[in-house]
């Protein structure tokens, strides 16, 4: 089984976000970069399928040379090789990025293309659907359970209030959600081996974006709340405030 996993380097989830000098993105000083957490579930699922059915897992990621550190993290989990699409990632338009990914993915003969359901920086959740549409492939996003057997797949997809059970044929694109699996730790051996694995670099020119971030800002600071310290004795006053001041109950 030939599997690709598209990953994105994102700031750590504990990052205290600040506005950068451009006013259009975050300040990157002091940011700890990680594999987008949802992508780790994608990598883990790909590795388990390759272990079960045989085959290779290729990591695909778009960005400058500085993302190779994050790509090596994915290789340390056990992925076999990687392709870095060399491009500046200043664009936030996922349509543009999807076209560059597809330019590499279309010739790979992949049975499955995994990615996280969304990246935790831009939070757009478009990439699985965008890539699938461009390649005319089935796609299931927000997947919490996946079964692949005999060229067919079934996936359990999370909804707001339940689950959909979806069937499809391979090749297909899968957007991994949390709880799909438990991503493995990188072993020392894995980290050592990752240093020797090949990262192929492919050049790409990105289209002009059609969705542009004009500015970013921090949400308005919240006023100090009314905090009561007498426990259950304060319940009636708080209920009164919720009714009369906040008018929410």
């Amino acid at each position: 089984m030939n599997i690709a996993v598209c990953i994105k380097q994102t700031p750590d989830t504990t990052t205290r976000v600040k506005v950068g000098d451009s006013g259009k993105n975050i300040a990157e000083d002091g940011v700890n970069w990680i594999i987008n957490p949802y992508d780790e579930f994608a990598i883990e699922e790909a590795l388990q399928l390759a272990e079960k059915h045989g085959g290779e897992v290729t990591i695909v990621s778009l960005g400058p040379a500085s993302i190779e550190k994050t790509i090596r993290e994915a290789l340390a989990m056990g992925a076999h090789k990687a392709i870095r699409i060399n491009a500046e990632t200043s664009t936030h338009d996922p349509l543009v990025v999807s076209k560059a990914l597809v330019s590499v993915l279309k010739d790979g003969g992949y049975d499955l293309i995994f990615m996280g359901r969304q990246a935790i920086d831009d939070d757009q959740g478009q990439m699985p659907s965008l890539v699938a549409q461009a390649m005319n492939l089935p796609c299931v996003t927000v997947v919490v359970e996946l079964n692949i057997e005999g060229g067919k797949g079934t996936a359990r997809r999370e909804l707001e209030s339940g689950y959909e059970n979806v069937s499809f044929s391979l090749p297909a694109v899968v957007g991994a959600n949390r709880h799909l699996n438990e991503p493995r730790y990188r072993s020392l051996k894995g980290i050592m081996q990752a240093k020797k694995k090949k990262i192929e670099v492919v050049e790409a020119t990105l289209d002009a974006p059609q969705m542009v971030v004009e500015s970013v800002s921090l949400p308005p600071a919240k006023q100090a709340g009314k905090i009561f310290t007498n426990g259950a004795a304060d319940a009636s006053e708080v209920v009164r405030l919720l009714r009369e001041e906040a008018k929410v109950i």
Partner: protein
Amino acid sequence: MATILVVAEVQDGSWRPANNDVLTAAQKLAGDTGHTVNALLIGNGLDGFAEEAARYGAEKVIMVSDEKLNKFSPDVYAAAVAGAVRESAAAVVLMGATFTGKDVMSRVSQILDCGLAQDALSYRMDGDRILFTRPMYAGKLLAEVSVSSSPVLATFRPKSFKPEEKPVAVATESLSLDLPAPLSVVESIDASGGDKLDVTEADIIVSGGRGLRGPENWGILEELADVLNAATGCSRPVSDEGWRPHEEHLGQTGKTVSPELYIACGISGAIQHLAGISSSKFILAINKDEEAPIFKAADYGIVGDLFEVLPALTEEIKKLKSS
């Protein structure tokens, strides 16, 4: 005349409440741009839903029915939306930023080669341009984005607009399109727990953290949720421990929600959790640790033992509702 096309979602035979929010956004946008609001209904068994769209101001409802739409498939639905957009020459296409809406509109973006503002919370006009505000980093950052393509595509987060009825005469138009065969199909839907409220569409959410000490203690939280007609949520450790089903997990790697009132019970308020609930209108926190970060995000807080505070709140609200 240019139109704003609202793609209305019917899931498992039900009209999704998010449709009303998006139609309300469309009404406002129509006021700002001079466009008219149309709605698009896709699928089969759509009787009665055109009336729902007209109640929220859709002057025309375009209906696309086809046997290929019997079972939901994002690829065929996206093809239907794209087809209807081409036929109707819409200037703006809107849908709810539900899991399904985000999936379908992403595909539409690729088919039409148009930009998409995903999961917008609001918009403002900048001359003729629409600037959408959308959260990044689970709401730790807000971005204003523009879309230069025609049509402009956007999804609005459920609850981002308070639904306002604007009844107009029902006018429908059937549209037949040459649709592709589905690439994937939804074989079945498992609704969680009967008539349990959808956490992303609920007005009030009562949410529990590790402070509840174990799944066996959720009764007091559910009683409070019951009297408030609220949905239930939880923090990440609670879902990781398996105390609660993971669809209840709220936060940066779970669901992001925007209720009128969010009640955090025994949740310390990790930055990832706060990110997922920060667009709540009001936050009430109950925690025994007065230093817990959740109190910094809260509008109201009670420092105390939640095993005493929650039943007391339930009693007070019962009294209020019966008076």
